[in-house]
């Protein structure tokens, strides 16, 4: 009496698989954990050897990240007692907080440009994918190939023409310019991925809605979009990750008003030696939005909502 099944793993197999997953997770998470911890170290602890796993946590890195500081004379320091906990931290180096750093602005730029281009890519991509999936479009295959071909070289290969174009169009160092640029890069991915997802949605759903008295656009919004949620969510994550992490174009095309966080973070290095805790703090904060976005959309990534509604 053995109920052996090739689809049901044995306890031993489960145990091995579980161990592998845990070990893999530990290895991949190690750098992240280290960056997270470094953000709370003092500069001395951050570069000590052997590396410190246990240390006195301090918010110095975060204070340094968000502020600009100046060194002051003892008299000045004595005359102006520290006002806040942040003041106290910088006083140990005989410094005072002169004002906020540009990190907040840069981070906000990243949010505007990253999410703006993701939204635009998904919006245009979904409409285009729906059209390619459902309508007879002349030369549809050629158009799709053309759309994909924009991905066949590294985007940075066209950096010079884009740089010149942007300068003439007045798009250099603007939010709109960066949103358009990242959208242009992402849209081919979005169209192709979403077309695949929409192809999977049976036409009968829309046809049922058309018969039920809805227009094609209403059918698209009320029936197709909810069905495509899984695909839209995963495509959005890919688009956001690209736009969020993009470095080369950001360095080239932005310097002030529209500069995103990636080109800004390395500039922290130059201020008074290598401020590793501040860099680590910047990296930690920089990771958060993508993480939160992914966790929020996780439900859609994992749920197969069309399951069982159409009998195949």
């Amino acid at each position: 009496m053995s109920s052996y099944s090739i689809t049901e793993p044995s306890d031993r197999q489960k145990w091995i698989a579980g161990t592998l997953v845990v070990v893999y997770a530990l290895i991949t998470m190690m750098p992240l954990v280290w960056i997270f911890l470094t953000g709370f170290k003092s500069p001395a602890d951050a570069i000590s050897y052997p590396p410190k796993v246990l240390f006195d946590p301090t918010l110095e890195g975060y204070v340094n990240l968000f502020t600009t500081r100046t060194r002051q004379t003892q008299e000045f320091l004595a005359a102006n007692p520290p006002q806040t906990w942040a003041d106290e931290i910088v006083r140990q180096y005989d410094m005072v907080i002169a004002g906020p750093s540009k990190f907040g602005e840069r981070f906000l730029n990243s949010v505007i440009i990253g999410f703006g281009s993701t939204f635009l890519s998904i919006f245009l991509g979904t409409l285009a994918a729906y059209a390619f999936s459902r309508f007879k479009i002349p030369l549809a295959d050629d158009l799709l190939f053309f759309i994909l071909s924009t991905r066949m070289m590294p985007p940075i290969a066209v950096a010079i023409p884009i740089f010149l174009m942007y300068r003439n169009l007045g798009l250099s160092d603007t939010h709109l310019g960066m949103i358009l640029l990242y959208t242009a890069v992402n849209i081919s991915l979005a169209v192709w991925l979403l077309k695949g997802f929409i192809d999977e949605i049976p036409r009968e759903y829309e046809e049922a809605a058309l018969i039920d008295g809805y227009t094609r656009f209403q059918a698209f919004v009320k029936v197709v979009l909810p069905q495509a949620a899984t695909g839209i969510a995963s495509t959005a994550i890919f688009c956001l990750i690209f736009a969020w992490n993009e470095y080369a174009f950001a360095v080239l095309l932005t310097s002030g008003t529209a500069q995103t966080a990636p080109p800004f973070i390395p500039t922290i290095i130059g201020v008074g030696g290598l401020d590793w805790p501040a860099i680590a703090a910047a990296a930690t904060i920089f990771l958060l939005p993508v993480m939160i976005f992914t966790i929020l959309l996780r439900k859609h990534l994992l749920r197969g909502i069309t399951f069982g509604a159409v009998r195949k």
Partner: protein
Amino acid sequence: MAEIVINNLRKEFGDFTAVQSSSFKIEDGEFFMLLGPSGCGKTTTLRMIAGLELPTSGEIYIDGEEVGRRPASERDIAFVFQMFALYPHMNVRRNISYPLVSQGMPRAEVRAKVAEVARILGIEGILDRPVGGLSGGDRQRVALGRAIVRSPKAFMMDEPLGALDAEFREHMAEELRALHDRMGATTVYVTHDQLEAMQMGDKIVVMNHGVIEQFGRPQDIYDKPATMFVADFIGSPSMNFLKFHGSVEAGATSVRMGDHAFGIPEMREPFDGDMVFGVRPEHIHLSDAGDFRGEVLAAEYLGTTQIVTVKTAGGRIKARVGSDRRVRMGDHVGIGFDAARVTLFDSQSGRALRSDLNEGVLAHG
């Protein structure tokens, strides 16, 4: 409640012609079957009536109005899909109420309507369940509920029983027919199952390769097939065909096939050339006497009847005879045909020759 008239309807997909110039009329309240093998154009015809496909040419009249170019949403018809196409992100109640919501019906009225439909279909208990976990039969009922809730002018059904298990199909077919009789609405039903068509339909259109082969009542189509295709497609086992070369005169009541003469219904047209002698298995009787003889090859027992395969000079013949008759393989038996039920076909075109039997049917078909 509507009468549907199809006039010279044609649909091409690129080089492929799915429907060639179809014309027929569906009376108000009729249960109308579009029957044919897959790829014959029956579903395309249905989708054109529903407005899911634009005709290449021709007209569609619903209640006297030409609707061929109107969007589906303006035709006031309901469609039941083979795969049900229930909205997967909504529960049963929302699925059924969805067509009413599009009309802007007040909420209380929607609730009342849905409750009424649920009662008719016996699905009150599952209204708040998601559609994902429902059984095939329940999904079918929900799909029907979504169709009838709006009291549309007509129902279009695309093989609605095709996705159900065989045993359940029978039951659902009865339910469907009862529902139709209760609502009295015109129903257009697509199927490839000839038994389903005969069992449920008031009228049947038989299609093949985009062409209407025959249009009429199930009895007429079965007894008086207009073409060899119809004779072959309908009935199980299908009609026996004996090919021969010969000639008949108008007014003849018998035809010579080889050395034998066989009685036929009085012919209304003469013919000379390659012909096919068509006779249904149940119109063949076996006897010990008779000079047209054959050798029994097999006998399939079916309860009250049996199908006996006999090898004759003109080819193999299947006869349906009472199971009380004892036949053994290798027996030589005499074969007789019920002369009044025989159809002669032009072998080349497959067209039935006009006779006393089928004249009335072929004239308007």
